[in-house]
């Protein structure tokens, strides 16, 4: 069984795409409306990337694919991504 991690582990990968540290960014789950910092989301290894799930309802917030050449972030389950000023 693969055990999940949490959003803290995505600080490095997401720094390749976003200017600010994303572990302190908040997002609202499109399924259940839960609002939390990315650090608290549940992160499942889905090589070559990760599936990020809501801590409250378990639905997919985002999918990240990281290969040697490119990075793709699918934000299908996140609304209102917010970074502290």
């Amino acid at each position, binding site marked *: 069984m693969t055990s999940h991690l949490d959003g*803290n582990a995505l600080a490095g990968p997401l*720094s390749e795409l976003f200017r600010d540290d994303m*572990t*302190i960014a908040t997002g609202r789950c499109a399924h259940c409306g839960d609002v939390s910092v990315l650090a608290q989301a549940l992160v499942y290894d889905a090589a070559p990337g990760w599936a990020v799930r809501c801590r409250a309802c378990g639905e997919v917030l985002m999918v990240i694919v990281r290969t040697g050449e490119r990075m793709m972030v699918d934000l299908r389950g996140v609304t209102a991504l917010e970074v502290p000023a």
Partner: protein
Amino acid sequence: MSFRDWLVGTVVSTQSQTPTAKSIVLEVPGFGGSSAGQHIDVRLSAPDGYAAVRAYSLASTGPSSTIEITVDLIPDGEVSPYLVHELQEGDELELRGPLGRWFVWKPEVTAPVQLVAGGSGIVPLLAMVRAHAAAASTVQFKLLYSVRTPRDMFYASEFAALASPTFEVTYVYTRETPEGWPTPAGRVSRELLESATIPPSESPAVFVCGPTGFVESVASWLVELGHSAETVKTERFGGA
């Protein structure tokens, strides 16, 4: 240099913490220092271009470009066997950081602090204890540290040396206790958390780090005991 750039560190020294865990001190030109609780990504690249990246918590803290991580061996892992068994003084290692600004303690925060560590989850919490000592902070710090056996403990002598009126450690042995230990081996429980940690009435900042199952049990018990979920910060490193 930014935290997102890959840097090259040189191993200054290594030290065994347990039969399967090693501390690695690196000098990293361009590293901009770190806050207590942050981590780095380490990248190992094969000649064919394949790269494996893993996150490791920093045991070190402060403005220095000399950093320390402690790596516990995952026998079938892609990165930790190399770091624990092969890496030697003078070797170079690719890394980026410091990373993560959420699971962080800063000396200017005045709330008391409760740390709860399972196994190698102690590493970022050690950085917080070091930052507390370095700042001569008078904030109350308590650590609950769960290990399987006395031989699995990281930084035992440093924790003993840092004990003070404002820093107290409670050890929990889950499989084997030291000789003469007053209680039998056993896991952290809700009852133990209630008796051995700072109560919710004192509004502590709580940091929990360890294997995923440990972190989730501890965090939910703390909330049941009356801690606000916002004050309980967690970091999971996977594992059993």
